[in-house]
């Protein structure tokens, strides 16, 4: 067991914290909620320059070839500022999809532009609807609708599952924006800065080179869901940790009855409970990242992490609201950004029910 960070990891964390806390202020985050990509171009450029968009890409693709722990460190800091934008979709799930599902040519074609931040990838993992794929010449014809498509209006490359019309096998395609017959709906109104929506495929014709992982893609999809869930748990804990900090700061400063409210036992115990929730979810989240990096079955580790984060993140925000009083309930206060993020995170990449069976493996149930 080792709970420490390497010197390099500490540098990544400190750099990420400094950059994000300076750049992604509450005002910035609010401004981005209406922005088409959710990330101001100059900020996106800086992120790419910092090497984050290609953090887990290999060096030959212009990436930093770092691992899941380093990615988790950056994600935790993003969670700590409720950072909006396509980073999670593109640099986490998108890159993972290509790394796991792409062949050499596909990786060489798609990874470098994503890694350098020039293109945005969207991976469809939560759709309640289905697309069917039929062979058409040397390529495929895709028909159907998908929903819960991330970065729906701004992605350059959609990675999406489709059911082979004859075999019923699940296939995975990587399809560029602009493909004929591919139409992105408008961005949904959601609780937080998700940019989800619907994608219609009206007999879209795609080449054979768009088919990732020729074989059944269910395994890859399953793995991608775990990557998403595990790192979402990390992001949620980043948010919860920052909410704890904000609350400690506020409670030490705000006075009522002639003394800081943080000296009242009721407030102290709410804050202690927040700290307990954060700490007891944080290690599980990092363990999930570690397990994803290490390989092997990560379902249990990720399930435990996501379930605990789901329980902790909203609870922490609720307690923070109670300590902040009315001010925390205003749009101009940053707290609500985190509360919205926590609610969004809980519903993303599997709610607690979805991870239940994997969690129960610990108990042989």
């Amino acid at each position: 067991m080792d709970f420490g960070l390497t010197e390099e990891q500490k540098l990544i964390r400190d750099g990420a914290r400094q950059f994000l806390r300076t750049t992604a202020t509450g005002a910035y985050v609010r401004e981005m909620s209406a922005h088409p990509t959710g990330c101001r171009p100059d900020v996106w450029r800086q992120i790419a320059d910092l090497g984050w968009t290609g953090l887990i890409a290999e060096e030959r693709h212009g990436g930093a070839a770092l691992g899941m722990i380093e990615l988790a460190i950056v994600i935790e800091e993003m969670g700590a500022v409720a950072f909006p934008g396509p980073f999670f979709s593109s640099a986490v799930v998108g890159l993972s999809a290509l790394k796991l599902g792409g062949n050499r040519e596909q990786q060489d074609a798609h990874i470098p532009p994503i890694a350098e931040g020039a293109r945005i990838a969207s991976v469809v993992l939560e759709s309640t609807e289905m697309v069917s794929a039929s062979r058409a010449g040397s390529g495929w014809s895709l028909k159907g609708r998908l929903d819960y498509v991330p970065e729906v209006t701004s992605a350059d490359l959609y990675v999406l599952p489709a059911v082979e019309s004859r075999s019923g096998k699940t296939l995975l395609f990587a399809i560029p924006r602009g493909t004929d017959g591919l139409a992105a709906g408008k961005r949904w109104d959601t609780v937080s800065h998700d940019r989800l929506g619907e994608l219609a495929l009206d007999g879209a014709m795609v080449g054979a080179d768009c088919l990732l992982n020729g074989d059944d893609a269910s395994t890859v999809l399953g793995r991608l869901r775990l990557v998403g869930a595990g790192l979402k748990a990390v992001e949620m804990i980043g948010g919860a940790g920052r909410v704890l900090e904000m609350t400690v700061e506020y409670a030490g400063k705000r006075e009522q009855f002639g003394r800081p409210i943080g000296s009242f036992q009721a407030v102290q115990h709410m804050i202690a409970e927040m700290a307990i929730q954060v700490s007891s979810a944080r290690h599980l989240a990092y363990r999930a990242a570690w397990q994803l990096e290490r390989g092997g079955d990560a379902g249990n580790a990720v399930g435990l992490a996501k379930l605990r984060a789901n329980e902790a993140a909203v609870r922490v925000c609720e307690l923070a609201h109670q300590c902040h009083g009315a001010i925390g309930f205003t749009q101009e206060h940053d707290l609500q950004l985190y509360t919205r993020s926590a609610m969004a995170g809980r519903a993303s990449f599997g709610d607690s029910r979805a991870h239940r069976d994997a969690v129960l493996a610990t108990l042989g149930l």
Partner: protein
Amino acid sequence: MRFEFSDAEEKFRAELLEWIRGALPADYAGAGEDPDADWDLNLKLRRELARRGWLTLAWPREYGGRAASHMTQVIFNEEMGFHRVPGRDAFGARMLAPTLMVHGSEAQRKQFLPPVARGEVQWCQGYSEPDSGSDLASLQTRAVGDGDGFKVNGTKIWTSLGHRADWIFFLARTDPEAPKHKGISFFLSDMKTPGITVRPIVNMAGEHHFNQITFEDVWVPRAQLVGEINKGWYVATTLLDFERSGIDYITAARRVLRDLAEHARMTKGPGGPLADQADVRARFASLAAQAEASRILAYEVAWLQGQGAVPTREASMSKVLGTRLMNEVTDFGLELLGAAARLDRGTDSAPLRGRILRARFDCIAWPIFAGTNEIQKNIIATRGLGLPRSY
């Protein structure tokens, strides 16, 4: 003991429900979803309630009320709340008017009660200040004698409907040397008085309910001082008792629970409707039992009031229970919706029109407003159970 309503009460409920069915537009989404859009409907229904005498249901006959029992008033509030009907007047008819009946002068009652009874005036409340929340008595807004009145300076915050209000009732410090509870007075002011500025505060749901009200050399005539000078704290707490009655929180939770139950019946989960799954049923059952328990406690508050008692402890319990329940119910709702919990009302496919998410936002503030639940628990422990004060 009798755990049912009287025939007269049931008759009133039937009459009210009959009216409610006709009063709302067919596609009505429910108050609170978009208060600004609902404002005209609110005013229209308020005047209709006034005509029927329901706005002043609990007022004594001498002030033009129907002298209805507290229990009838509870039925009224429950049905109006459960069906999300706008038109009630919390600040004027429910809080200020009974306070004036106790503490106001004859002239004040003559001047202020009739417009409230007719549903023609909107009041708002100036209690909290930026530095005075739980510690309300530390408020710093100053009212200094000035001719036949007072000059007021200071800032009030969290004033619901401040931007809609014609009049405000507020607390100001009239003796800065006295102990903090003993130098406060209770005033009324026309919102159009020069020097009053209203700044909107948008809440986390993106809605404009609250305002910050600034007083800059606002002159208030002495005739608009309620009760004695420096004795405003007593007036203020009388009014707070009217505010904390609790049934509205519980009603909101019951309504959400019913909407969720319908959703669970209609929605497929793995292997059948969500409503058939044991984990979902277990949560519903526990919440339903809490809801019914809280509801009866709110009835008890009304019954005690009807007996002439001042049910401080019960009212505080009811507030804690109702606000907590609503948070639990809406949070369970979001969990029940799964991935769709993210969809807000602007998304066509949002389940229940995004109402659960909206309600979840809204009710986060309920354990804070009208005295935080921590303050309520202090009250239960000290005033209710006689434990020594903690500070």
